[in-house]
């Protein structure tokens, strides 16, 4: 999913401000959980798929991006159906599909910097109340997006090194060295962020 994040483009969704997209997503998500008409929800899901495809990402790439969460949605639907509640399944599946595609459309058409800035602006009232440091919360979001591919790459390196030494794939053999590497990396990243002058000067013009 990370591959498509913040892709550049000139579609109407790309041009829409990040705040508007996120607010719209929040409103639609809320409405979707109130609606209980399978036909309406299915129509919204179809529209959401069309919106996601309008970003220019392409059918194959979008399917690849969302394969895992769509699989989970299918599993949830199957469980509901298996429990004998077909009506609930007919609502839950299109509702989650709609949310997945809309959220994907937002992340595809919004840069991480824009997302972080909007997130920070949204949290500003809570910062004024002394409840949260909005800048740090926004940086956390950025770091999560930045380091997912890096952690995946490190996991692959560990797995390859273990395979080269004849070790069969075992979750515990992978997790322990991965956690150690991630912790060491986290310390380096924290130093680098400090060295680059974070947190920002509060008197800045930004």
């Amino acid at each position: 999913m990370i591959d498509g994040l913040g892709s550049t483009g000139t579609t109407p969704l790309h041009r829409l401000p990040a705040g508007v997209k996120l607010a719209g997503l929040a409103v639609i998500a809320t409405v979707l959980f109130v609606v209980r008409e399978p036909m309406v929800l299915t129509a919204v899901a179809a529209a959401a798929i069309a919106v996601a495809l309008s970003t220019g990402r392409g059918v194959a790439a979008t399917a690849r991006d969302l394969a895992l969460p769509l699989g989970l949605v299918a599993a949830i639907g199957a469980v509901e159906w298996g429990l004998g509640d077909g009506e609930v399944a007919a609502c839950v599946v299109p509702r989650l599909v709609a949310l997945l595609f809309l959220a994907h459309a937002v992340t595809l058409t919004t840069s991480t910097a824009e997302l972080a800035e909007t997130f920070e602006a949204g949290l500003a009232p809570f910062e004024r109340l002394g409840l949260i440091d909005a800048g740090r919360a926004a940086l956390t979001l950025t770091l999560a997006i930045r380091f997912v591919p890096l952690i995946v790459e490190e996991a692959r390196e560990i797995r390859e090194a273990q395979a080269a030494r004849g070790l069969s794939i075992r979750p515990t053999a992978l997790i322990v060295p991965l956690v150690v590497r991630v912790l060491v990396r986290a310390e380096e990243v924290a130093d680098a962020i400090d060295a680059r002058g974070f947190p920002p000067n509060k008197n800045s013009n930004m």
Partner: protein
Amino acid sequence: MERQWPTETTDTTAPIGQTIVFADVSVVRDGAIALRRVSATLTERRIGVVGLNGSGKSTLLKAIVGLVAPSEGTIAVDGRDAVTEARAVRATTGLLFQNPDSQIVFPIVGDDLAFGLKNHGVARAEVGDRVATTLERLGIARLAERRIHELSGGEKQLVALAGLLVIEPKTLLFDEPTSQLDLKNRNRLRGLLADLPQQAIVASHDLELLADFDRVLVIEAGRIVFDGEPAAAIATHIERSA
């Protein structure tokens, strides 16, 4: 041998630098002494630091930007204390980490350069121009919209360097800048280093890189055991490492 560098300049090719003073500095990290009673005044344009792994090279660089606090002594950068005035010191002094993946915070190249500018309070209107100019200067303007995890090791190193240069520091600190680079990128970095007007302090095992520097410090178990001309410093390092 010692020279004073202008603190402000409008000429982008004129040398820029600071006076960095270590006054009897000792650093203890994880219960071990990383630096022992280091005293030195660094003013030259190109300063090398050599030593075996764990000798204290990285600690010395981190201490200059206040990432590591001395347990004894003080470090001053153009008269500002590296610990108590760390923000001011970091606005004029950039540290390039050994692994660029640890240094690059944003997933997109241009956004990462903007991160440093935002931290240092640069006006929003200036950010785009400065990012574009810096990427152009390093010959990597084509990478502006690229995702970091798609870049090669050499490209990441250049992006990390661009992230420092964009804030227009007076001094650049390089921690093993060539250790992860192939020959082509190593030569490219060497060329860039030669052209940079900023003062540079480079900790490296790459003795060839340091050969034409103004001054080289040899560090052993946290102490400066030699401080002088590169040829003599490199010979001392090789002899003591044998």
